């Protein structure tokens, strides 16, 4: 673990009580390796280490803990501060119009499953009446997948044959109003951030459905590439938050740090399993210690 490695280093340096500039640099070299092994983006790590070095050098020594513990505390505090604080509250429309949520992201990241999970979360926590919208018309059985999930939750799924996704999303609003659904969750097809045509389609959906909330659904095991896609989705959509999925695995999840650092947008929720109830609010402090290892 990182703390074991740091203890070893400080023992070797004969560090005694005082945090000197040289043992800070040595300790942070180890932190850098830990972050890279955790899949934090190379440039994000560089900026972070520079920032933490400055903060550590100015730091007064805390007598009651060892130098390695102090480095970990500084790093962990800084990492938690970077990814948080997180406001889990959700703003719903004050008027009668349904509140619209949109899920976007790369192929296979967990969007469709997260639509159902988020619907259940809104039903349970806020007593909402969600409508799921099947706007992925290209993946085989995508509509069917959302319908199966909708049935499990006993909530309606809107689909309209013969229409393109922006129009489907547009028409879902009237359908929601007519069927007393106060919340709309748009499931979109997975797409590459470098596919210009499909990124334009997302912009089109946004124009036609006017979502109040846009979540980038991101896989926790993503490596260095996380910043590339997050940056593009954010600049195309101005996302409101991130849902990080598959955190029930053992991926360290450094992508969480990278995505927050690059986009400035908060990770709000996490997927922690395949079942509909496996959905939690994101806690930066827990993520920080997971990333540090």
């Amino acid at each position, binding site marked *: 673990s990182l703390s074991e490695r740091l203890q070893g280093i400080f023992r070797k340096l004969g560090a005694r009580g005082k945090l000197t500039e040289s043992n800070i640099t040595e300790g942070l070299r180890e932190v850098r*390796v830990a972050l890279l*092994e955790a*899949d934090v983006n*190379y440039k994000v790590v560089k900026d972070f280490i520079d920032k933490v070095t400055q903060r550590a050098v100015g730091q007064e020594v805390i007598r009651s803990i060892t130098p390695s513990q102090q480095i970990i505390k500084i790093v962990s505090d800084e990492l938690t501060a970077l990814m948080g604080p997180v406001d889990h509250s959700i703003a719903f429309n004050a008027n009668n119009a349904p509140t619209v949520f949109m899920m976007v992201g790369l192929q296979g990241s967990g969007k469709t499953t997260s639509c159902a999970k988020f619907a259940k979360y809104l039903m349970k926590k806020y007593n909402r009446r969600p409508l799921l919208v099947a706007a992925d018309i290209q993946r*085989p059985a*995508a509509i069917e997948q959302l319908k199966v999930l909708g049935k499990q939750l006993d909530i309606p799924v809107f689909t309209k044959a013969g229409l393109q996704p922006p129009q489907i999303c547009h028409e879902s609003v009237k359908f929601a109003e007519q069927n007393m659904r106060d919340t709309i969750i748009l499931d979109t097809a997975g797409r590459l951030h470098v596919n210009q045509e499909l990124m334009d389609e997302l912009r089109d959906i946004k124009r036609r459905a006017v979502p109040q909330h846009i979540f980038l659904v991101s*896989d926790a095991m993503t490596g260095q590439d*996380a910043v590339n896609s997050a940056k593009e989705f954010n600049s195309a959509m101005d996302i409101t938050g991130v849902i990080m999925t598959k955190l029930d695995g053992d991926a360290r999840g450094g992508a969480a740090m990278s995505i927050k650092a690059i986009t400035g947008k908060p990770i709000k929720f996490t997927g922690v399993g395949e079942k509909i109830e496996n959905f939690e609010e994101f806690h930066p402090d827990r993520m920080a210690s997971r990333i540090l290892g």
Partner: protein
Amino acid sequence: FTFGRKIDNELLDKLEEILISADVGVETASSLIEDIKKAYESKTITDTSQLLDYLKNSLKKKLAFDTPNMLNTAPSPPTVILVVGVNGTGKTTSIAKIANYLLEQDKKVMLAASDTFRAAAIEQLTIWGQRLNINIIAHKSGADPAAVAFDAADSALAKKMDYLIVDTAGRLHTKVNLMKELSKISDVLGKKIPGAPHEVLIVLDATTGQNAIAQAKTFKEASKLTGIVLSKLDGTAKGGIVIAIKKCLDVPVKFIGIGEKMEDLEVFDPDKFIDALFT
């Protein structure tokens, strides 16, 4: 006159950045940089212009394997291919692509829908089967995946198929009971057809970071692995993690996925892959 620049640390740092940014990993990147330093000290490389080629060639050698890109073939048909991996990596889509690849070689192919868990998984594979105009063996949703596999093996033998490809549910390698279920599917195939599964392909998402190593290691223990399908290489991720996987687990990449259509599959070309890593 110029002899070419001395190998400087700034250049080595830049190379390390490229490798790490390609998901090669810190440890593998460091050892590659060490190799370069040794080659320079022993005068194998004498100037900077040789450095990148030396690195590329060493990587290409590491990724090549003796029977390049060949799918294993059973001594008598059908050859059984088991496709495994964590959630959402592209297993079902890759199966459609591999089936298409085999059909183009005039092979007779059948699919087994052994993902009986995920919503509409059977429907998804069924649609691919229809597009390919081939048989799919499926039970109802919630059925025992091993029973589907057994049934499919039976059918593949009876219908004299050349290949049977078995789709399995995405599963995180950390879920012990799911990995046990996978071992059972593999065992059941072997009971019905000697030596089956003859090929076990793990589908890895090219965007995956260091966790891919743990995935490959655990899946190898549960069901053995004979190859990797590296999917979604049409994105911006480089998939460098396969270098470490080849190094420590000796599992080669056999195919790459470069899109969502059934034609979007290529046989793995180490030279092309490594060249792309550095662009």
